[in-house]
């Protein structure tokens, strides 16, 4: 499994079906508060978006049936999207990212952020690559799973 470095360009000519790449992410309370704070600033108001504590309050999360506070889906999606933009580097581009939220991501989950090359198509000057992308937790579950299509430069 290859780790990703956005400063090292991935070229279409160098990849193959089945190639995998990954990053790691353990979302904690500080990160979630930072993410929600960013949203609050953008709104011109503070606080979380749901008002029921699911993202930041252990007791509020328990009342909703979660063992711990959960991570906002958009935050997890952003991390998965970042894996893709890291992999395509500065010379590639992302056409789309399509993700299903299958189960919640909990605070302090040790996550693998992973990508897998599932299809390729040669083009002029660039190649189109289809990826499976997902988050996998230490319990072997994939709370986010989806696909992405990207363009990679040719050598």
């Amino acid at each position, binding site marked *: 499994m290859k780790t990703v470095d956005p400063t090292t360009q991935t070229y279409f000519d160098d990849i193959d079906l089945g190639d995998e790449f990954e990053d790691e992410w353990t979302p904690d309370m500080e990160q979630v508060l930072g993410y929600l704070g960013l949203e609050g600033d953008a709104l011109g108001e503070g606080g979380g978006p749901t008002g029921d504590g699911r993202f930041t309050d252990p007791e509020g999360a328990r009342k909703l049936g979660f063992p711990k506070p959960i991570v906002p889906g958009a935050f997890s999606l952003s991390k998965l999207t970042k894996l893709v933009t890291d992999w395509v580097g500065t010379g590639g581009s*992302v056409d789309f*990212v399509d993700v299903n939220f299958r189960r919640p991501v909990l605070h302090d989950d040790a996550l693998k952020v992973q990508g897998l090359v599932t299809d390729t198509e040669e083009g002029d000057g660039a190649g189109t690559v289809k990826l499976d992308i997902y988050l996998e937790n230490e319990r072997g579950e994939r709370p986010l799973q989806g696909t992405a299509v990207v363009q990679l430069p040719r050598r």
Partner: protein
Amino acid sequence: MSEEAVFEYDESVIGVEEEVGTITVEAETVARYCELMGETNPLYTEQGFVPPSYLQRMRFRGGPDPKVKFGNTGFHAGSRMELLKPVKVGQTLTGWAQAKEVYAKTGRSGTMVFQVSRLTYRDENGDEVAHSDQLMVRRQVGE
């Protein structure tokens, strides 16, 4: 054979696109977002491009609401972001929202009602730079 799901929603708003605000992409906010995300791609940290996921952090007003009446809980089930043009810091984007469709599916775990909403991002010239489709689900949990 499953029974047909009974749910209500306002059909008149389906397919109607509505402007939901204009936001300028500020350098400071993008820099803080990049720091939070651990972003190291020079496109976003040095060259003034905006990470694609940042677009989903832009909070426009709510769009047309079909006011789905079904079940007692809802959750975010899916997201599809299509990127048509790169966005740079300093650009002003206008959001256009629409409720695309509402439909029900019934399986072993019962009936779920799906609502698909689309946000289209347009630049200063009116050109589309991205689409974001969100899938929300409503269902009945417990009695």
